[in-house]
């Protein structure tokens, strides 16, 4: 399975970086690509608590995302599930794990997102969707081969 790992060092102490993830106003101020604005965020930052956020594109399109916190250990670690509202029955909930390490007052943030759909996952979940998606994957491969 392919995971996404991004490591960044921020010139700020851990508690500040951690709060930027867990304070609704702060998260809304930076979440999303350049030009987007966070228009609403609710965060129940405790294990089992839900979070929900929305980003608005420059054109005004809203994209809602949501999940559940699995681990909240300030200022070291934050774990939560992540899914877009629009993904519907595509079963594309992923898991985000963020570790915050202290580097003499700076913070090394290691962001890992796992659980992206793979062929094996799809086989286990939904036969109808799997067979369809396999067909489509084959179609893409044939296109690539040309």
């Amino acid at each position, binding site marked *: 399975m*392919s*995971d*996404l790992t*991004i490591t*960044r060092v*921020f*010139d*700020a102490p851990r508690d*500040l*970086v951690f709060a*930027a993830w867990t304070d609704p106003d*702060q998260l809304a*101020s*930076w*979440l*999303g*690509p*350049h030009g987007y604005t966070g228009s609403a965020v609710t965060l129940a930052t405790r294990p089992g608590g839900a979070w929900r956020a929305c*980003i608005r*594109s420059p*054109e005004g*399109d809203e*994209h809602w995302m949501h999940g559940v916190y699995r681990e909240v250990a300030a200022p070291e670690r934050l774990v939560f599930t992540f899914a*877009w509202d*629009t*993904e*519907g*029955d*595509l079963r*594309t909930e*992923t898991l985000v794990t963020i570790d915050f390490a202290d580097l003499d007052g700076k913070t090394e*943030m290691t*962001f890992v*997102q796992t659980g*992206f*759909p793979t062929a094996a996952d799809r086989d286990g979940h939904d036969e*109808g*969707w799997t*067979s*369809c998606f396999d*067909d*489509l*994957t*084959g*179609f*893409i491969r044939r*296109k690539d081969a040309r």
Partner: protein
Amino acid sequence: MTDTLSRTFSALADPTRRAILARLSAGEATVNELAGPLPISLPAVSRHLKVLEEAGLITRGRTRQWRPCRLEAKPLEDVADWVATYRRFWDDGFDRLEEHLRRLTGDV
């Protein structure tokens, strides 16, 4: 980036539309051919085709009476490439997070 993806996801979220795409992955087909095995009316099939066309998942021929539908691979490739999509999403956000933290620490 999420705009295109959202449109693709919405289009793919419906089982009838997925069935239509699966059929088209085997080759071009007309509305009548697509409607054949489906338990819904022709106008309903047409509405689904419109959604798929707007999402860029299919294109339709120009010939008036027989506008064959054809599957387009590009949006599906985008959906399949989850990791690259999310990397762009978060990298962009983390640039903004860095700016946000700089403002907070007064180091602007």
